[in-house]
């Protein structure tokens, strides 16, 4: 199926008014009644995946709300963005939840934060705190940011259950390390249902738009979406702005980005292996994996200036170069890691209890994985070959040759194996890229970001595909939407935990490598309160 075929098939759907191709995506504008047929065509007939949807308050521009549904045809390396308008007085759009189950959360998020109703499904509150007043939508441009709701000291959401058939996991629970709340409904020792009540880490960064965040400053918040895979977020953000503004990043900067991204992946996967060993009562495994990981952390500090929160990215390039002595050090550390981690990993999976508990537990079948558009190692452990580094190559990945490990069992052991294999691939990628790194500048200083350009960018984080969507504004983003990988993977937990022993629940929850601070970010920067007329066209260039 060629690009023109795709465009032809999309144009043939009634209600599609505009199809525009650009560098970062295929942009479609459609009427509300064309949304469902379009979703069906792209998601099921063309075999596309669902990335996310983003609501936007464009009343100051065209007197409408708008929803952007972002799809991806992975095998063609193509993003498809579908824009539909909703009325400014009574914003309402048809839900595509029954066609694309993966759209559940982002629709509810748009409902919470923008007040856009979705017809044909049951709505519920997802993101905002429990006591938040109805009808107040913080992402609307007319929302007055200075009013913090009164802080409540008692919670209605957390009620300690009085029957022992419910086991609350969280919000402060040693198996989670992050404040999230799962309610597991159990029968004996068997889980029969799961309820996720998250969004404790909703930090509402919209407020920052008001404090006049500039394009460059947003980089540092993007990094703080997540403390484990922050560099992926800041890279993705930098890329989406660069793509919107047409900035040509120096090759050397792209190499440095790829190298640091892979180093972050190694540290993140080692961290995860350690946590899993700890959850299985194998504390020595935890200690020794983290001992190996410590080398990576020191290496990251050497390259970027900080063990975490590298602060390396700027729009237009990176801030620190990799010189010869650092290059030598990278090779040294990688040699230590590759030797030690294989020894340790094979030990961990040989421990009888560990092996017994990983195998066959928390299974996610391929069909469910496809239905929910899960990403990253979770998808690859369920037989889906999805990897942004291969599908939509960014930074310097086109210069490296590497495998995408795929396992078919969909159980916790597969997810472990995927990650163990990926550590090896990452080590090889870093080595290849270091050898090919071209000389030259590491950033461009002078650039301008035009207003009203729409762009999409994706980066493969350790947990899966990370998507940033932007509408540029004056001096800072007009609308910035982030879809972290865990956001896409948590709904799959329902399938993985059901009918499983309670004892496996923490392990299975951990097996998607959840990063709740990513999920809850709701990172939408709005340069609110500025009256302007803005021509909202697709990123034509």
């Amino acid at each position, binding site marked *: 199926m060629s690009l023109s075929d795709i465009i032809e098939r999309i144009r043939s759907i009634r209600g599609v008014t505009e199809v525009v191709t650009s560098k970062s995506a295929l942009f479609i504008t459609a009427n509300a009644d064309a949304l469902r047929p379009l979703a069906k065509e792209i998601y099921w007939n063309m075999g596309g995946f669902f990335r996310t949807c983003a609501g936007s308050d464009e009343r100051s521009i065209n007197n409408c709300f708008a929803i952007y549904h972002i799809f991806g045809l992975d095998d063609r390396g193509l993003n498809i963005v579908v824009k539909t308008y909703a009325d400014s007085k009574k914003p309402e759009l048809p839900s595509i939840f029954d066609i694309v189950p993966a759209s559940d959360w982002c629709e509810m998020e748009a409902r919470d934060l923008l007040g856009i109703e979705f017809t044909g499904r049951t709505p519920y509150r997802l993101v905002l705190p429990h006591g938040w007043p109805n009808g107040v939508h913080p992402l609307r441009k007319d929302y007055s940011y200075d009013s913090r709701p009164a802080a409540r000291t008692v919670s209605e959401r957390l009620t300690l259950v009085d029957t022992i058939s419910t086991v609350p996991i969280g919000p402060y629970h040693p198996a989670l390390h*992050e404040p999230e709340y799962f309610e597991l409904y159990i029968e004996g020792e068997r889980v029969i249902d799961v309820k996720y009540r998250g969004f404790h880490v909703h930090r509402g960064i919209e407020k920052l738009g008001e404090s006049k965040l500039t394009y460059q400053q947003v980089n540092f918040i993007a990094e703080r979406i997540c403390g484990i895979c922050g560099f992926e977020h800041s890279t993705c953000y930098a890329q989406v702005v660069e793509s919107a503004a047409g900035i040509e990043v120096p090759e050397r900067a792209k190499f440095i980005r790829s190298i640091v991204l892979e180093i972050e992946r190694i540290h993140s996967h080692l961290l995860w292996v350690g946590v899993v060993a700890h959850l299985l009562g194998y504390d020595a495994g935890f200690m020794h994996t983290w001992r190996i990981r410590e080398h990576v952390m020191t290496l990251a500090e050497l390259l970027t200036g900080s063990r975490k929160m590298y602060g390396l990215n700027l729009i237009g390039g990176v801030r620190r170069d990799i010189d010869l002595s650092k290059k030598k050090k990278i090779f040294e550390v990688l040699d230590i890691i590759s030797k030690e981690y294989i020894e340790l990993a094979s030990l961990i999976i040989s421990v009888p209890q560990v092996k017994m508990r990983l195998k066959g537990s928390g299974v996610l079948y391929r069909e469910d994985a496809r239905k929910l558009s899960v990403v990253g190692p979770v998808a690859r452990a369920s037989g889906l070959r999805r990897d942004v580094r291969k599908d939509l190559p960014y930074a310097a990945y086109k210069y490296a040759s590497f495998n995408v490990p795929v396992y078919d069992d969909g159980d916790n052991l597969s997810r472990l194996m995927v990650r163990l294999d990926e550590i090896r691939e990452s080590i090889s990628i870093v080595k290849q890229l270091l050898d090919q790194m071209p000389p030259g500048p590491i950033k461009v200083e002078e650039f301008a970001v035009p207003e009203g350009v729409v762009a999409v960018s994706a980066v493969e984080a350790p947990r899966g595909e990370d998507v940033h969507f932007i509408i540029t504004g004056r001096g800072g983003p007009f609308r910035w939407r982030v879809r972290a990988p865990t956001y896409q993977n948590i709904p799959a937990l329902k399938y993985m935990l059901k009918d499983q022993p309670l004892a496996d629940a923490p392990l299975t929850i951990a097996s998607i490598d959840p990063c709740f601070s990513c999920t809850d970010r709701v990172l939408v920067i709005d340069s609110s309160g500025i009256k302007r007329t803005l021509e909202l066209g697709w990123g034509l260039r």
Partner: protein
Amino acid sequence: MPNKVIGRSIWVFHLNSGSCNGCDIEVLDVLTPYHDAERFGVKLVASPRHADVALFTGPITIESLPKVIRALKAMPRPRYIVALGSCAIGGNIWHTSYSVIGGVPKLLEILKDEGVSIDGVFYVPGCPIRPESIIYAIALIKGLAKKKVKMKVKKAEP
């Protein structure tokens, strides 16, 4: 500043109140071989009822506030708070956001209104905190190190 009650055995309950995870993984890192906080008698416990110290990371979101207060109330006295990282002390980038209260100093005001008394607060800056900073704070509590920061007021001569 050495503390008589918890100076030799510090049991810590970790409260992530909207942190990005950066500090949290460094808290775990402190327990691992290269840093090994256990050599100072530090132990992470799973229940606030066992804890001497509540370790705060994150700017304290409004959603987590009630649970945080609940956990603090469950701790037997004397109880201490350690604010870890720039979110918990000053609210970091989100210090003015609508969905956070902006750090431990603000939490202390709320606790005062609630009648929850706290026996001591320590602040440990960093973003994210590095493991040595945490160990330095432990050393401070145990009296093995001296405080180094002090409010500075300088004048720029015109």
